[in-house]
């Protein structure tokens, strides 16, 4: 498991690093434009980032569970659901059984939260709980526990905070610019003017494009982790059909999760906004459900290697599962 986690982190780390560079650039140009000092902008970006990061790190799970209206349950409330969570924690070798939450909502969905495997929680809507049989429930819970086990929750929180910081800074920076802000011009000596002007135009373009780029990177990370959690689900349950058939039920329902929003969307099993928004592949937090089902059904066995093979058949040889994980299951 350890080598798998490490390599997952490496793989997604690249994208996170690119996002970090984007954040630094935004801060740099912000400082250059408004404060005449790149360092000042970098400091502002760092402060906002650290502030949001600390909140997300320590309060993120309770905020997420609170916003979605989740209610914690004990074993006596729903023995079967609780048992399934226990079974999947055992199968994945989690050190502690996650807390179990129910969201009173007829829509079909589930999500996992918790910054490390010792503080994890899984939440499921009452609609989904009622519609799934035991095998399907197992597949869905295993997918969520896969997110916990692969440290996706932490990774997605880090990327979400970076995305949020970039969006906030760019939003305010561009608004102030249009209002004629910026105190640079007059105090500068004339000599460096041309270079400065070019730099500022680059900065302006960057401030406008950065949020879009960051959003796309964020979505790319999110989709990758979904495939991986599907593979984990198959490995833990040794029964990919369970998750496949649950996904089929999810695909056929058309109720949206009431309490979901753009920021929390990647935490869910499927895109909580459903099919109503006509989104293309790379604009979505989740891979298309039909494709996920096809991959799960094409698996010859239950291991990561089998998932990798099925995935490759559908993506002209491109892989998804990290190499070091292939030998372990």
């Amino acid at each position, binding site marked *: 498991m*350890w080598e798998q986690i490490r390599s997952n982190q490496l793989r997604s780390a690249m994208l996170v690093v690119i996002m970090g560079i984007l954040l630094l650039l935004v801060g740099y140009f912000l400082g250059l434009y408004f404060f005449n000092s790149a360092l000042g902008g970098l400091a502002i970006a760092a402060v906002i980032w650290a502030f949001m990061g600390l909140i997300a790190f320590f309060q993120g799970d309770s905020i997420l569970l609170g916003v979605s209206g989740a209610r914690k349950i004990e074993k006596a409330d729903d*023995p*079967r659901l609780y*048992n*399934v969570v*226990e*079974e*999947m924690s*055992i*199968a*994945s*070798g989690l050190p502690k059984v996650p807390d179990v939450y129910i969201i009173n909502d007829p829509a079909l969905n589930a999500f996992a939260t918790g910054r490390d495997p010792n503080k994890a929680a899984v939440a499921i809507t009452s609609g989904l709980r009622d519609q799934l*049989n*035991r*095998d399907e429930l197992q597949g869905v819970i295993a997918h969520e526990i896969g997110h916990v086990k692969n440290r996706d929750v932490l990774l997605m929180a880090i990327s979400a905070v970076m995305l949020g910081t970039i969006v906030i800074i760019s939003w305010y920076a561009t608004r102030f610019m249009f209002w004629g802000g910026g105190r640079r011009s007059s105090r500068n000596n004339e000599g460096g003017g041309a270079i400065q002007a070019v730099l500022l135009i680059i900065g302006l373009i960057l401030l406008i494009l950065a949020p879009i780029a960051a959003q796309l990177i964020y979505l790319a990370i999110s989709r990758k982790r979904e495939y991986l959690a599907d593979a984990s689900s198959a490995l*833990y349950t*040794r029964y990919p059909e369970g998750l496949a058939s649950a996904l089929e039920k999810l695909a056929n329902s058309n109720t949206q999760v009431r309490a979901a929003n753009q920021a929390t969307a990647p935490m869910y099993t499927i895109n909580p906004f459903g099919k109503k928004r006509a989104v293309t592949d790379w604009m979505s937090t989740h891979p298309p459900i039909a494709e996920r089902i096809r991959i799960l059904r094409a698996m010859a066995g239950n291991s990561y290697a089998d998932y990798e093979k099925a995935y490759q058949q559908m993506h002209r040889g491109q892989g998804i599962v990290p190499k070091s994980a292939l*030998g*372990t*299951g």
Partner: protein
Amino acid sequence: MVALWIILGIIVVLLFAFIAMYNGLVGLRNQVKNAWAQIDVQLKRRYDLIPNLVETVKGYAKHEREVFENVTKARNMAQAAGAAGAAERGKLEGELSSALTRLLAVAEAYPELKANQNFLALQEELSSTENKISFSRQFYNDSVLRYNNQTQMFPSNIIASMGGFKASEFFEVTVPEEKNPPKVSFS
């Protein structure tokens, strides 16, 4: 002088590789031990559930004495073999599983029993415990596979033999019926 530094560098690199591999082996061995303890927890839970289940079924199906006796006997034998190796325990636990399956099959014939809330709760507990046993076994075997690979593959096998890391035994169930455990599903 340069050669000395190069040799020193190589020694340091080798030392770090040694430490990393040694610690990796210790971690895997502990994981195997922990996974084994997990199986024990679940098996014990099953021993505790069985008397309760037998009592409940007895109240409705008095004539199936042989089935009850078989379950109780298999349970006591499995419990007594708690300290045995993985292979021996696998066999006894497999026998207990098939005795339990017969008990549940018998229960199917008594509609009043199947309507009993207490029985239904016990049945969910038991089938979940069966699942937990097989999932903890699955995790144990996965852990053993990783650990054994490390003790046998080059170059970590050198450190494994120096540090006395011995390959672990898989927990296999030898009763043929157990290979395809009957899925108790109530959807």
